[in-house]
């Protein structure tokens, strides 16, 4: 990549270790070791704000005689979690390039109450898009008895008819697109018991290391007993316990994996920023050289740099290209 002149990179032997403690569809608990807190925080931020999901974004109401007004209903509909595995293949409206991409998923709702008892309009009543049957509200007609989400309650004579469009989005834009209920980490505590002082007391046991992370009580008690040095609790600042609780829109492990991929993509984009890409189309050229010079060179008939492009590395089809980092803005080619 960067040839010759630049100094050799120092390698930091940060090889993080991951240990999964609990894993179900919507809950993942794992320990992340040998990495810095800024990395753990970056992961947490990306999980919350940048993992894309699908949620209702546009609601056209045809008839609403319920007790909730239109925007109230639209807001509630937006917050319904929708199974978002499809989000990977969807595009956001401003990302459309060819016009064939999927951006919208259509739902509709058509309920009127005819009985004397209160009718509950729930997420089960939403009519899903036949073109995308995998995008459904969570627990949609759930066989194991999980209850659906109540949207509004109606009495006899009230009616609700609407159409809704769901789109892909990220937590940064609106909280309805956040894929997790919570994503948290805390630092693993390290407890030291001074054995010598301990012998002078009666039994002390540690049940569960984590419960004592900020346990001032234990330290206060030790002081009370006249032995302030018995227990010391420290934080292992490079070991974190991560808990990711999904709302059900994506599998918890899928969320974490996607977050790491997104973090990688961002750092890649940054690493390339400040580089300039040169491209030339030629169907018949057998060799191309990039010649860089500036104004003063032109006057003297010289060049600053002449870079021959490699036939394999610098050519894709008929396009010859090369990306160069950090060039002076007064260069010509």
């Amino acid at each position, binding site marked *: 990549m960067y040839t010759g002149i630049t100094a050799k*990179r120092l390698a930091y032997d940060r*090889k*993080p270790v*991951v240990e*999964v403690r609990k894993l179900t569809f919507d809950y993942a608990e*794992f320990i992340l070791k040998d990495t810095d807190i800024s990395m753990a925080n970056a992961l947490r*931020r990306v999980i919350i704000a940048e993992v894309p999901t699908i949620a209702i974004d546009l609601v056209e109401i045809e008839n609403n005689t319920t007790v909730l007004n239109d925007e109230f209903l639209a807001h509630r509909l937006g917050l319904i979690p929708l199974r978002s595995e499809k989000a990977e293949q969807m595009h956001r409206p401003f990302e459309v390039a060819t016009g064939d991409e999927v951006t919208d998923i259509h739902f509709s709702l058509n309920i009127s109450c005819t009985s004397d008892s209160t009718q509950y309009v729930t997420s089960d009543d939403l009519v899903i898009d036949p073109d995308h049957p995998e995008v459904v509200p969570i627990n949609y007609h759930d066989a194991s008895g999980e209850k659906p989400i109540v949207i509004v309650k109606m009495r006899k004579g009230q009616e609700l008819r609407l159409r809704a469009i769901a789109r892909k989005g990220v937590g940064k834009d609106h909280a309805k697109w956040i894929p997790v209920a919570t994503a948290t980490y805390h630092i693993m505590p390290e407890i030291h018991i001074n054995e010598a002082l301990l012998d002078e007391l009666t039994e002390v046991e540690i049940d569960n290391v984590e419960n004592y992370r900020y346990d001032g009580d234990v330290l206060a008690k030790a002081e009370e007993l006249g032995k302030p040095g018995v227990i010391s609790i420290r934080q292992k600042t490079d070991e974190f316990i991560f808990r990711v609780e999904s709302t059900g829109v994506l599998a918890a492990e899928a969320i974490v994996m996607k977050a790491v991929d997104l*973090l990688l993509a961002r750092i890649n984009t*940054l690493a390339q920023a*400040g580089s300039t890409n040169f491209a030339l189309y030629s169907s018949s050229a057998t060799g191309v050289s990039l010649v860089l010079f500036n104004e003063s060179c032109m006057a003297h008939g010289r060049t600053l740099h002449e870079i021959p492009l490699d036939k394999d590395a610098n050519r894709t089809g008929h396009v010859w290209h090369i990306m160069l980092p950090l060039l002076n803005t007064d260069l010509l080619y």
Partner: protein
Amino acid sequence: MAQDASPDFFGATFAIEDEDHTLANTLRFFLNKNPRVYFVGYSMPHPTEEIVNIRVQTTGEVSAHQALRDACEDVKDVAQHIASTFQNAVAEFRAQNPVTK
């Protein structure tokens, strides 16, 4: 990315658009670890504007730009490592705890 110097300076402030604490704090940490960097810090001029300023000052053995690039590579390595380690950890967990539903 805009810089305030031509490529060979040893102290530079990088103003990076469309970035926030997520990446800036992580880069700051890895830059700090570099013994050839003697000062690094970042700030966000205003929270509603997605721009971060990262200030890097090196000892002179590397340019500020090179130090930043190296930090980017470090972050990439760590992230890639986490990705593969996490996948292995999940597979291992599944192997030890077969799903009973």
